[in-house]
């Protein structure tokens, strides 16, 4: 059930980011799902969603996938240093990840979008953590 729920969020984020917004929503969903589930199998979702986003944005295929996979790996590396299932971690990691993504792919309003991205990530974390963190 939780897999379907996450998948729904991811597809929704891909469609929104691919068509109407430049806020990196897919990155948020991947980050939050990774923090909650901590499964390396999430890389396959990062790969596929990156490719679909590249198609939507007329980018060279594989660019977004490399970014998403590398970002998840960095989050994994920080797992030992920080408590990852906290709001500050979600906020700062999504801020840094979002800002890097927007800078690398040449979007405008980097700072504003990164802040909005972090707020969305925190809200998503709050929503999903309540539902899934305690049940696992």
């Amino acid at each position, binding site marked *: 059930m939780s897999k379907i729920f996450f998948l729904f969020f991811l597809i929704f984020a891909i469609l929104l980011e691919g068509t*109407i917004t430049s806020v990196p929503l897919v990155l948020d969903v991947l980050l939050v799902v990774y923090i909650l589930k901590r499964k*390396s199998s999430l890389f396959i979702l990062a790969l596929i969603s990156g490719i679909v986003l590249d*198609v939507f944005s*007329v980018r060279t*295929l594989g660019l977004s*996938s490399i970014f998403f996979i590398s970002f998840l790996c960095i989050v*994994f590396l920080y797992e030992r240093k920080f408590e990852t299932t906290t709001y500050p971690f979600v906020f700062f990691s999504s801020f840094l990840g979002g800002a890097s993504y927007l800078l690398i792919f040449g979007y*405008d309003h980097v700072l504003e979008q990164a802040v909005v991205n972090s707020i969305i990530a925190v809200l998503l974390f709050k929503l999903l953590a309540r539902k899934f963190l305690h049940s696992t």
Partner: protein
Amino acid sequence: MRQRERFFLVFFIFILVSLIILILSLWGHLKFASLLLEKTVTPLGKGVYTAFHKLPFLSENEEVQKLADINLTLVAQLSEIEKLKKENSALRDQFQTPTPESYTLLPANIVGVPSFIPGITTPANFILDKGREDKVKVGYGVVLKDNLIGKVVKTSSSLAKVEIIVNNSSSFTAKTGDVLGVIKGEGKTMTLGNVLLSENIKTGDLVTTKGDMTLEGIGYPPNLIIGKIVSIDKNPSELFQKARVESFINFNKLSIVFIILAAE
């Protein structure tokens, strides 16, 4: 520890797969797969984009829409009259007929307009549902009626990315009357710069393209409407004056545009 090793193994496998996809894509070996994906996602994108614009707080009042359309037509007619005046004058002077401008226009649907706040923030790019398959090339101009929208900056098999004229990286030559200058995108509006201090420009003047189209159809044809001057910054101590230019187009409300393929 074992879980950590497993994680890194999976990471390296997936980063390697992504790199292979990237390299194959760069070398053009994934054209078929890319086309297949594009054909699948384009209707989805178009559906989401259309549905989004039907939201009650975003869809424009019908009367406002009609007035906006009439305004665009009137501006186009004004520009046409100005052009005809000049042509008439040239005809009288030189007794020769200038070649009428005629371009092949390809209608294209907008399937994506990624902007910070959808429907509010001015977007920097459009994604169109026409690509290399439809003979669209990088550098082709994009218009709506006689108004310039932008130019194609990237193409895939069935999609094209358009850089809108207000995009920060957009820059090209323009004119207002007989005065030449350079238009630069400022995110929401544009700046007409490099206008000599001795030149006379005023608020409300129409700004049009100077025309820098090559034989292959790359670039902008002349006399396309860019916008109107809304303010002028003239400092006697500087060599040039500059003006702020606003487009007549609401880039958030577009659904169809036209790509200028080449001169007939």
